[in-house]
């Protein structure tokens, strides 16, 4: 009896809820120029939801706003280490994307990740690697080594751009110096510091604007994300993305729902929506990175799906996803970084 009642009630709730769910608004806060307008349009049509999209330029900006409270956003797209921080601070809603209808599409490599073990909070958005690209018209040597950045041959000295990003640069230096990531050990940090100080005179600029830097001829080498490298190669075919033997930085951005989101149900619908292979392909097609959803490649243009930028060669080291460093290490990173650029 009570079972039947429950069923009836839940059926009624569902009947009421479904149209109500599919109506209304959704406020998304994502990295700049990262969201395919077609994806948003499709979602709006499919669920009759009005979406607003705003952009941020760094995890830290997003985090500051979310942490202050009352940001008004439902969905944010934090990178791996930021998901970890947001979870520790209790900023995200437990939405169980893994149990959603499209949850089965998540590439098994990206289910038990350090930032959200078992995918209870976040859905994959895009992932990629960060190494560097070289214009091989201007440099013919072996590029698959971090020595290109940290101990460059003479013809590359003063022709290098690195990302204006403390973590990426520090981690790369740690790999080159052969010490662990985020290590607090003084001797290792000294090595890292020496590596950076020795490399600095060879660096021309610190900038995120990597595609313009390398395609305009300002530099020959630039630290870069793989998707940006793909785009650079579309402009100058000789630009080659390196897979340094010392190790490769990996990252993943994830769709998360904020705790207290006003449009919680729509936000869940959106998480499920982006895990459908054809939708994940829309994301990748626009922004140029792989997405962590199995079966999405067949919806992608083959020259992109088969490009060397998203398919590492056999023998390349596996991408390493680095958790947030402990505060005492961040403090030292900060000092080294300031000293490097004073």
């Amino acid at each position, binding site marked *: 009896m009570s079972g039947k009642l429950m069923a009836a009630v839940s059926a009624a709730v569902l009947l009421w809820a479904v149209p109500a769910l599919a109506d209304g608004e959704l406020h998304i806060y994502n990295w700049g120029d990262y969201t395919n307008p077609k994806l948003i349009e499709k979602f709006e049509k499919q669920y009759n939801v009005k979406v*607003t999209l705003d952009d941020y330029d760094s995890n830290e900006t997003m985090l500051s706003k979310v942490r202050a409270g*009352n940001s008004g956003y439902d969905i944010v797209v934090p990178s791996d280490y930021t998901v970890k921080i947001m979870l520790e601070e209790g900023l995200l809603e437990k939405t169980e994307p893994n149990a959603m209808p499209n949850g089965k599409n998540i590439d098994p490599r990206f289910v038990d990740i350090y930032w959200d073990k078992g995918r209870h909070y976040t859905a994959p958005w895009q992932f990629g690697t960060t190494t560097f690209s070289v214009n091989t018209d201007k440099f013919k040597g072996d590029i698959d080594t971090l020595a290109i950045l940290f101990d460059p041959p003479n013809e590359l000295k003063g022709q290098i751009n690195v990302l204006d990003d403390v973590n990426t640069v520090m981690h790369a230096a740690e790999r080159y110096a052969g010490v662990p990531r985020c290590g607090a050990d003084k001797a290792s940090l000294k090595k890292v510091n020496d590596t950076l100080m020795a490399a600095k005179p060879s660096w021309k600029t610190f900038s995120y604007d990597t595609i313009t830097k390398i*395609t*305009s001829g300002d530099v020959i080498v630039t630290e870069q994300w793989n998707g940006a490298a793909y785009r650079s190669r579309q402009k100058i075919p000789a630009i080659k993305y390196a897979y340094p033997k010392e190790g490769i930085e990996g990252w993943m951005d994830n769709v998360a729902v904020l705790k207290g989101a006003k449009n919680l149900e729509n936000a869940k619908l959106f998480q499920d929506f982006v895990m459908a292979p054809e939708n994940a392909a829309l994301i990748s097609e626009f922004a140029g990175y792989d997405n962590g959803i199995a079966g999405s490649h067949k919806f992608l243009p083959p020259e992109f799906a088969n490009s060397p930028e998203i398919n590492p060669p056999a023998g390349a080291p596996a991408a390493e996803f680095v958790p947030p460093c402990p505060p005492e290490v961040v403090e030292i990173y900060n000092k080294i970084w300031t000293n490097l650029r004073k």
Partner: protein
Amino acid sequence: MAEPRAIDIKDQPGFRSIAIICLLVLYVPVLILMIFSLNSGSLVTHWEGVTLGWYGSALLNEEFHNAARNTLIISVSATIISTICATLAAIGMTRVKPWRGLAAAFMVINLPLMVPEIITAVATLSFFALIAGTFGLNFGIGNLILAHTVFCIPFAYMPIRARLEDMDLTLEYAAADLYATPWNAFKRITLPLLVPGIMSGAALAFIVSFDDFTITQLVAGPGQTTLPLYIWNQIRRPMTPEINAISTILLLVSILFVSVSFLIARRRAK
């Protein structure tokens, strides 16, 4: 003959050339960016040929429309409010006997100038979040207008103050002697004398508000993206000439606006 003499005494050698150099310096980059809006290549760094295509995509770009609308609402409101406040404050702080706290008031007015942007941004963000959390108050886009007004006030205030300082007061006294009410005296005498200062102040307030990124990024709520946010957040991608087309459209709008107001003013003068 009085006329040639009058022009002669105003002249200072070389000043005309320097003024022209200044204008050239200001306009050359703007001309370049306008020319590149016609580039058929997809990079802002290499010239490939002529097209109007970027204007098409800019005009059809909904994000651009929203951002442009938000920017204009915010900048125009903040300019008007801050210029009014600044004008009143400049009068209240120069047309008086020095009062206790005058120096402090001057510091307060100029405070937004001294605080680094990121600090104002973080502080304002915390402040609005606090208000929203405790009193449930959220002024929507009003939050941004208020934040902009605050940092625009000193920029509007300084030119107006510079105008008022050492200004001849005999006219105002004469008006008062003729029993003009303070408001009439202000409207007929002080305000017209102040116009160049107010124009300069408003112009500065507007360009400061129009280009603000740091504070806007942290204070903006959902759907409140402004043009600087929209443009800056594309830096991870190579800029296409669409950005130039967007800027050119804004420049043309401003030129149109200026010309129309100039023509109206001239017709009225006739």
